[in-house]
């Protein structure tokens, strides 16, 4: 099965060369099937550490830099890999059915290579290399196909996230130069770093991942990037690109530096809850559709980070399912926002009133996605938020109890702003902007349907995600 690990990266990379929508969709489909196939033939290979990859590939690349081409997949990375290949496939299909651009599709494939590479990398330096690959293609997607203010937004995105990744570079080599190895399997099994080094490295790494996630107060690049990005760019950005940050925090920062994590966890928890509350409050005052969804991402990622900050198995499970659910639901929300903005040429909530009157199906799907996003039990968004709050409560002590209560209040805020969104957009008399707009076309429905189904499926059967991840999460919790 090790060839699948390479193929899942190589197929999109080769597909990108052709700069054709049809080839891109084909390559994305093959990559999706390959990534699903990674779950077959699982075994822990006799490993006893916290990372027990089902399949591994380990070849030397640049010995002079401690860089090995070491890939592997386990229960924590698998759901994210599949989510990435799925969303890329849906975006490519969307571009195929709508009037998309071949170069844009090729860039999405390059981004896919980088993101999947991040999730598969079991070598710290390789992880960093893949982390960097995503940067410029995403810049090009925003700067080349975005809205009116795309250039400043793209520049802000790329400079902010580069700031994060250079700190990642420093953090990675603080670890590597002290430990003498960059192998994540070894590094997470034997914690050989002294406490002070762990603390310094953890702070560097957590700032790096906090920029990507993004964690308040390092989130300010996100709303601009989302507002200006083209639909597929927003979907990939929110759906999977942000997960590189939370995945990195869980796998690399917490996994390799548990002592550092223990000392910084309360700070992370406080910031995460602040993100939830700030995200919610800002959303209440938003008047632009994509900006509102972008800020809701800040809140949702706050729950994921809160889960990680508790450093418990329950918290990690919350983070994992929260990641996946956010990818599905926010991906869908951005598809819908893009569809609405393409039709009405405005994202202003006050001009979108009465959508239900003119496009009931579109409005219905938007309602479904918004309700899923606010965390209604039975839909995917519920589990991540509930588990995060429970994990914080179980952690005990006054600080974590207060954080749990505040996070729960933040969840209620989410309900408030999404219901406000639905009230503003779907109800009332039809405004001029929404008159005469079309219902979803088949291409859009094909791209959305899997996300609609998954939002319900993961909500009803969270074991879809947690089942494969259970062992990996249990052995990881300190």
């Amino acid at each position, binding site marked *: 099965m090790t060839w699948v690990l390479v193929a899942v990266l190589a197929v999109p990379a080769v597909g990108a060369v052709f700069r054709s929508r049809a080839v891109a969709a084909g390559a994305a489909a093959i990559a999706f099937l390959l990534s699903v196939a990674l779950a077959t033939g699982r075994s822990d290979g006799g490993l006893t550490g916290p990372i027990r990859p089902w399949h591994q590939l380990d070849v030397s690349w640049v010995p002079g830099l401690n860089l090995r081409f070491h890939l592997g997949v386990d229960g924590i990375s698998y759901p994210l890999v599949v989510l990435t290949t799925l969303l890329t496939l849906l975006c490519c299909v969307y571009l195929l059915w709508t009037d998309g651009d071949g170069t844009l599709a090729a860039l999405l494939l390059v981004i896919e290579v980088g993101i999947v590479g991040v999730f598969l990398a079991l070598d710290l330096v390789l992880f960093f290399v893949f982390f960097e690959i995503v940067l410029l293609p995403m810049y090009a997607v925003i700067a080349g196909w975005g809205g009116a203010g795309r250039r400043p937004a793209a520049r802000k995105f790329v*400079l902010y996230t580069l700031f994060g990744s250079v700190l990642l570079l420093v953090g990675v080599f603080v670890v590597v130069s002290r430990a003498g190895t960059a192998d994540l399997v070894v590094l997470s099994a034997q914690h050989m770093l002294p406490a002070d080094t762990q603390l310094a490295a953890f702070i560097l790494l957590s700032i790096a991942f906090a920029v990507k996630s993004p964690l308040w107060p390092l989130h300010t690049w996100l709303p601009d990037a989302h507002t200006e990005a083209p639909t597929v760019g927003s979907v990939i950005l929110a759906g999977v690109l942000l997960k590189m940050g939370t995945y990195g925090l869980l796998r690399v920062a917490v996994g390799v530096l548990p002592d550092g994590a223990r000392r910084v966890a309360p700070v992370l928890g406080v910031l995460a809850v602040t993100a939830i509350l700030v995200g919610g409050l800002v959303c209440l005052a938003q008047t632009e559709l994509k900006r509102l969804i972008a800020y809701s991402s800040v809140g949702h990622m706050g729950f994921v980070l809160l889960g990680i900050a508790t450093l418990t198995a329950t918290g990690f499970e919350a983070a994992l399912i929260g990641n996946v659910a956010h990818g599905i639901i926010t991906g869908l929300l951005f598809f819908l926002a893009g569809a609405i903005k393409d039709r009405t040429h405005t994202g202003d909530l006050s001009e979108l009133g009465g959508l239900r009157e003119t496009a009931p199906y579109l409005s219905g799907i938007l309602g479904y996605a918004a309700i899923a996003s606010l965390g209604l039990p039975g839909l995917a968004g519920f589990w991540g938020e509930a588990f995060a709050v429970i994990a914080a409560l179980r952690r005990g002590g006054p600080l974590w109890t207060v954080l749990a209560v505040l996070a729960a209040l933040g969840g209620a805020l989410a309900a408030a702003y999404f219901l406000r969104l639905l009230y503003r957009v779907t109800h009332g008399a039809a405004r001029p902007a929404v008159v005469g707009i079309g219902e979803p076309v088949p291409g859009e429905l094909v791209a959305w349907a899997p996300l609609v189904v998954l939002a319900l499926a993961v909500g009803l059967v969270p074991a879809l995600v947690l089942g494969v991840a259970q062992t990996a999460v249990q052995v990881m919790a300190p």
Partner: protein
Amino acid sequence: MSFDHVALLPAYLAAATAVAAFLADLIAPGRGSAVAGVTAVGALATGVVAILVGRGPVRRTFCSADCSYVADHRAALVAALFAALTLAVVALSVPVPRLGEYYFLLGCAMTGGVVLGYAGDLITLIVALETLTLPLYILVALKRGTVDAAVTFFIVSVVSTAVALLGAALLYAGTGAVHFGRLVAALETGHRLPLTTAGVVLLLAGLSFKVAAVPFHAWAPPAYDGAPLPVAAFLSTASKLGGVIAILYVALDALRPAYDIVAPTIAVLAVLSMTVGNLVALRQDRMVRLLAWSSVAQAGYILAPLAARVPGAAGAAATLGYTFLYLVLELGAFGAVIALRGDDDGGAIADYAGAVRRAPWAAGALALALVGLAGLPPGLAGLFAKVVVVRALLATGTGWLAVVVALNAVLGLAYYLRAAATLFAPTPAAARTRVPWPVAAALVGATVAAVVVGFAPQLVLAATQP
């Protein structure tokens, strides 16, 4: 005293190249391409012979108590690099008719560079560096209306050479030695005079002029912008390499026991260079000036690994490795600018708008080189260059400088990206630019090298290991 002529062979060949270029111009006046061909063959031969000699045992000559000319593995690498850079610059120069002396002067500069690699004492080192620099004053002044730039270059250069010589003289006064090995011995044992400290700082400061490190950088932007483009390419690659090699040899071979003074001096130069270079580059709107200021910043990254508190092979290897990757990318950038713009003028960055439509391959190469200099994929060579420096700094416990380097990389991206994005700006369709084949060959060579070392940086890292 007997001479080892085999060891001297690369230097002979380099000098012969210059003479041959001169004679070829006398025999066939006005046949610029013939003269260029002779120079190219000479440069190629110099490089090949340097490598062949370097594969053998270490050879020394001009020895008294210690040797002034050491032909070891590292020297061979340096000589071959100078020869390759000269070859590339010759190729970039071909399309435009040149004065006959042009190739002669390039050959002279190459001779200086080749000998520099073999230098075993401070006098040889400084003389070789001067031989490398002297022809460049004239080459910079070749373009009409750029005498000011050449005069600035000349004056700053002369002052800095005087400073370096003063430093060498003070060291000689303090230790009685000019050979690297004997300097080390004298500095290790003797009581260190304040004079020696001053000598170390002055010597390094004088040499840092050649790499255009702040505060000895002011000559670079006008000289680059005023010179013919191939000469600017030579200034930013070969001339900078000369400075790096000189500093490397002096810091690690000659002044190792005085590293407690060397390290902070180089740290100050490195931090100032990268920060000032990047900040000023942000404000540039001419392509060559942008490249000039960015090369000031790059000098900072190049010097940074030498600022570790303890001198070590790792720092030297990192500096050499970064330098090599920088040279490949910088040569690619200048080659692409020449391919896009012809010879005379780099022009404003805005003039490059839509270049991908006029010359997709050349513009692609320029974008790759710029992104590489910024240190990001797809310019993997640049990414690994950055990794090499940060890794070396953290391995030697100089973490604060690693953070400074890392943050400067963010500043750097801002202007590299601005220039690279301009290439893709939408413009009305325009006629395709034709690229002369020697320029195309040099550009392809540099770009292929950048891609290859991007995927296999181990080639560079293995070559720079002591």
